[in-house]
């Protein structure tokens, strides 16, 4: 250090000498710039009652109308929820829920009748809901191979380690691998409208358009490009242990088969919270004159495959119309109204305090 310091002085070629007549060649005076002297033009927000009060009133005045709007919108959304877990003896699905097995070959069906008190006017989204299902468990979330799902042949045949222990079965790579795929929801839900005459009309359910566009077209891809012969493409792989049929038999429509099956894609988007719903089907409005789901009697027919007893879970079917703010949730509206009211109230309190003490303060200032 010392060495370098005197060397540096040598380089400069001068010695700084203080005292009389010592003509210093280089000035060490700091630059007199606004930045270096910390004199940049500055704005100082001074938090006084005068500046705080309007802020509160403004927040209050903006939030309360927003809250009301949100609340009304949410209330206009119609929603119907049917629990078909079959825990109660009286439940139609009780029997099915008792003899569960992942690999049972004999499907168990149950029929749940329900009554729709209000007609659902617009498009209706049909969800299945699970509760107490921790899809967000750390190890569960990781148990997938995105490369495999993206159509990578290499990953198809050699699933990543993350998929363990659901990577291989009987020495064959599992496609799709991992615990998420393995535990895919496999109940089938069908909806029938009971005509006032007593005739049972099946309601057409759209199974496409339920996944994110980017998921379906970018993230998930079948191996082998556009080869429609998925059976050949998935040659050499085996189905997940809990599945009843291989991935290439999920649907007959080649646009919705294999990895790009939308039910599968929706399931693979792991839910953030243990109680969640996932979009199952869409009931499209056909005619502007007739409501999508008119008021009346319906039955829900369930092919009961998915066991939830191991985690005391519940299974639900949810019908919901949709608005710009998504599903029915009055919380945000209430929150806005509450926060707005608090701000307004605080504003009033502050105003009173300010009015009471502010004057005194001013007079004190003047006497000073």
């Amino acid at each position, binding site marked *: *250090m*010392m060495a370098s*310091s005197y060397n540096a*002085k040598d380089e400069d070629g001068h*010695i*700084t*000498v*203080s*005292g*009389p007549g010592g*003509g*210093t060649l280089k000035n060490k*005076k*700091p630059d007199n710039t606004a930045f*270096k002297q*910390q004199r940049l*033009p*500055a*704005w*100082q*927000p001074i*938090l*006084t009652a005068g500046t*705080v009060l309007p*802020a509160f009133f403004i*927040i209050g005045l903006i939030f309360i109308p*927003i809250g009301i709007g*949100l609340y009304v919108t949410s209330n206009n959304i119609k929603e119907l929820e049917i629990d078909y877990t079959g825990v109660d003896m009286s439940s139609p699905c009780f029997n099915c829920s008792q003899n569960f097995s992942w690999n049972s070959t004999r499907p168990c069906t149950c029929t749940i009748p329900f009554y729709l008190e209000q007609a659902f006017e617009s498009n209706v989204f049909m969800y299945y809901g699970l509760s107490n*299902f921790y899809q*967000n*468990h*750390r*190890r569960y*979330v*990781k*148990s997938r191979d995105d*490369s495999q799902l993206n159509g990578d042949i290499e990953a198809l045949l050699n699933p990543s380690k993350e998929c*363990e*222990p659901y990577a291989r079965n009987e020495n064959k790579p599992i496609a799709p691998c991992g*615990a998420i795929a393995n535990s895919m929801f496999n109940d089938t839900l069908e909806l029938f409208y009971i005509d006032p005459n007593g005739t049972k009309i099946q309601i057409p359910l759209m199974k496409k358009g339920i996944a*994110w566009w980017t998921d379906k077209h970018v*993230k998930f891809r079948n191996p082998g490009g556009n080869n429609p012969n998925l059976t050949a493409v998935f040659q050499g792989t085996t189905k997940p242990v809990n599945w009843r049929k291989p991935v290439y038999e999920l649907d007959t429509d080649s646009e919705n088969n294999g990895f790009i099956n939308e039910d599968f894609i*929706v399931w693979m988007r792991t*839910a*953030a*919270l243990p*109680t*969640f719903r996932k*979009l199952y089907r869409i009931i499209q409005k056909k005619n502007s004159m007739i409501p999508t789901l008119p008021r009346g009697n319906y039955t829900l027919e369930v092919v009961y495959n998915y066991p939830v007893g*191991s*985690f005391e879970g519940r299974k639900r079917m949810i019908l919901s119309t949709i608005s710009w703010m998504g599903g029915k949730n009055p*919380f*945000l509206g209430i*929150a*806005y109204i509450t926060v707005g009211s608090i*701000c307004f109230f605080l504003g009033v309190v502050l105003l009173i305090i300010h009015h009471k003490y502010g004057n*005194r*303060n001013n007079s004190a*200032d003047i006497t*000073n």
Partner: protein
Amino acid sequence: SKRHHQRRWEGKRDIRKLVSNLPYEGLEKMKQPNRHFPGNAIKTTKYTLLFFIPMNLFEQFHRLANIYFLGLAILNFVPVVNAFQPEVALIPICVILALTALKDGWEDFRRYQSDRKLNNTPCFIYCRKEQQFVERRWKDVRVGDFVKVICNEIIPADLLLLHTSDPNGVCHIETANLDGETNLKQRRVVPGLSTSTSEFEPESFNGVVVCERPNNNLNHFKCYVEKPDNVKVGIGIESLLLRGCTVRNTDHTVGFVVYAGHETKSMLNNNGPRYKRSKLERKLNTDVIFCIILLFAMCLVGALGHFSWLQELPSVPPYLVPDSHGHLDSPALSGFYMFFTMIILLQVLIPISLYVSIELVKIGQVFFITNDIDLYDEESDTPMQCRALNITEDLGQIQYIFSDKTGTLTENKMVFRRCTVMGTEYPHCENGKRPWPPQSRWTPDTEDADPAGTPHYHGSRHRGKVAESAQRDVAFSSPLETEVVPDRKLLQQIRRTESSSSSSSSGKTDPYLDFFLALAICNTVVVSTATVRRQRVSAPICPLETSNPFETFSHLVRKVGSFRQTISSWRPMSNRSRTSSNCSVLEEDHFNSLAKTGNCGGRKSTGPQTQDTSPSLRYEAESPDEAALVHAAKAYGFTLLARTPGSVTVRLPCGEELVFEVLDTLAFDSHRKRMSVLVRHPVTSELVLYTKGADYAIMELLGTPYQKRIAADTQRHLDCYAKEGLRTLCFTKKVLSERAYKDWSVSRQGALAAIDNREKLIMDTAGLLETNLTLLGNTRVRATGIEDRLQESVPDTIVALREAGIQVWVLTGDKPETAVNIGYACRLLDEGDLVINMNYVLQLMCVSILDCTLEEVRRYGNDPTGLAPTISLVIDGRTLAMALESDLVDRFVDLARRCRSVLCCRVTPLQKSAVVKVIREKLKVMTLAVGDGANDVNMIQAADVGIGISGQEGMQAVMASDFAISRFKHLKKLLLVHGHWCYTRLANMIIYFFYKNVAYVNLLFWYQFFCGFSGTAMIDYWLMIFFNLFFTSAPPIMFGIMDKDVSAETLLGLPELYRTGQGTGEYKFSTFWTAMLDAFYQSLVCFFIPYWVYEDSDIDVFTFGTPLNTVSLFTILLHLSIEIKTWTVVHWVIMLGSVAVYFIVTLAYSAICVTCNPPSNPYWILQSQMADPMFYLTCIITTVLALLPRYPQYSFSFAYKNKNSPPETDFEQGTILEKVWL
């Protein structure tokens, strides 16, 4: 017994015997006698190219933080506990290690370059083969070589000076590179080795150099040369040329290499930078421990939660993933593992990045402090220096200041003010005035030609008037300050004695002449010619003339001037020469020439010559009072012309030059408090001892009865001087007999040749000679008073510091009277103060007085009327020593605590540091010591913050200090503004950092309650890293560097504001926990609002995390913007930039990364969220609700502050003022 002693010393391992290399030149290495000593090549690099990475890593892992980091990263590789992909968890530690390594590598490379440059610097080494000095490199120099150093070259190694071109065997060196002192120091040739004038023959050197082992003491060197005839010549530091110094004023020198390379004193002194730990940082560490406890608590909650969650499950659900063998751990084991997973997940809670950020912030703060133009001293061209980089915030918490007096409160630019000779006082009325502006200095005055000597008086009175009108603005140290206006009466006295004895030699013993001779001789002032040291000459000669056109011109002018002067008058010359060569001409011998033309008309012929040869004498004095005395003597015509170790040349007023043979110089030391010079008078051949010293050190050596009256008068004058605040010195003379000298000389030589205990022996012999002086009694006392002017704005600064709640103590070596006087002058003491003077010899008395005073002072303290006077304590060194003893110290401290100001007089350097230590430890306060001299070094090092004033007394105080300023007044802005800012900035920044980490990490923690405590993160890990690394790192750093809670003007105007930093200040226990509570509240809001919004919906993990991340970004930044008091462009850019960077980086990352970071996959998530109005609605309400308590709390506390405490009322006024200013 002495020989025995010597032998014992040699028997020890701590000596070295060196011989010349020349007889062994060309032999192989094994036969070289000096082969064991290292070469002169230096290597200051820490690393080698090959081992850089391992060595640097080893170095870095000495830091606990890095080990913690590494431990977490390794933990992440354990499959059962890992929270993230193992590789990803390595990123933070790798980034930090890589950045540090890069910095270290660069620094090391710079060191390597500078080493290489130094090692390859050319120098001249004697070569036997070629029989001359040949050019080699520094790295080729070995111990035992003979090296020739030419004028203005840097000395390559520690050399024993054997020969110089100077006929007197003297060499001047400048040690600025070593200690920053710019005055020249004289070194002399080892006596009796060199064959004086002729060219030095290295081959003829056949002695053995015996020296001590290398050490880092720059001021001591023990060595002797044993000649073949067994004669030993003792050598001290005065014959050692130190590596790194520059040879000046000497054409060339030859030295014998004693120490080379890393063993040289300069390299041994080359320590790393000082590291002090600031008070704030110590407190910070306790809070880090709180954080660790919190982390463990949270991890424990996670572990227990996971355990009970697993317990509750009726059987194995499909979402529980077994390990690769299909095996599931038991709930207890899983819970145990989960503990570690949680540590990894929540690791950010321990703010590792805080340490890096604090370092960055301090660099920024130091940048602003050093660049403050108000702390820059125009006159000496020195900006503020921060030598310790990590205690800037301590400046804002100072409670006690311990200040040196001389040179700190005062200028330490001494001016000769008054003197008393033989009991007669000469008041020098005109000198009291401040220096006059140069223009009016030598106004042609008709009276100047008056031969009677009156011109001085009239002229000076005239000048005095001019000065009075203009002096207020005059810079304090114009070169004229050393000028002394002679006292008329004294001048006449000299005239009289001189004319009465102009031709005779007996008159030389006249007390007046003796007095001035003593002034001129009795010192260690070195005379140099100013022109030489000003310029760098590349040629090996350092000529006086023709190298600089300016100089040649001035030289010509001077010649013309002197020519004219010989004809009639000197008037126009000095004026013109000053204007034409204002740079190179420093001093003109005006008075001298005046005296000549006025008095010694008969000796005119010598006039012009002497005028020519000494046009620009420059006195290099080690202490300013010596210089002042020499200048005073010069003013009366006694000009010190030259000083060599063997002689002193003085020109008398009549132009006659006397060469005194100097037989010995007994140097000054703080024990004897005096110095002496023993000379042989050239005319009378008498052996005269002139002694100069502090009055009490001299007065007690006088004893003969017939001197009593003079002594008493003198003492009276001395007391009077001291009351005026003058510094006093006494001069004595003693004539020795030849025999007495011979006797003394023997014992002196013995002492000098001793190596062990040498200093003490030398001191003893010095004392011996000086004590004899009383016995002989043939002494005369003259005293001088030297004024030491108070520095600019000192009273102002002291008052401000006191208003700021800082206790100011003054510790000085001066007499109580002087100190008290200065105390009043600088408003440390007030007229209304009750001054307690403690000056007792007996301990018993000291005890009882201390108790009484304490009792009384306590009563005053309890006085409810508030009419009790403020109490000041003046204590002298002896009493202080008693008071600091263990049984009294508590009472003393208690008394001192109740006093408004304390003045300690006649204290030794060690006592200064003892006082500081006692106060610091007993009262647990932050102390600051400020001083300028070597005697303040102890105190500066003992205090929490040491401040050195780069002034007149060298650089030792600066070298030991943490901050270096050039004027005392700078302390005001340094403490009140920069100290306050640095402290509040850093304190707020640290609290904010804790808050930020807790607020963010808690989001992850709350999520654990909804994912079965499984350690899931709902935010992509990369985005989490980026969040801390890029999105939210710059704003707090900027906050720590640039925020201004109060403007500089207000802080200077209302010193009371400084009190906020004292004690605990902003950084309190409560502040920390308030911030923590706020963080908890905010994290709850930031988590649960989105949670309720997205409850029972089809939201996925990362889509849920995105609004959380966004909301906490907004909350954290807006929280900061509530804290920011002053917004400049930089603030806006950084705040808005951070938000922009967040969105740009996250959008880019989620657009590009389809499968890049398996299994985490944030693809298109932010995009889809940003297309959803709910996202914005959620973000807005969450941010508002999170900040809802903070915002009104701030405004409330503001209003509350305004009403309740009086200083805060001022505070508001301050802000109102600021509004006007801004």
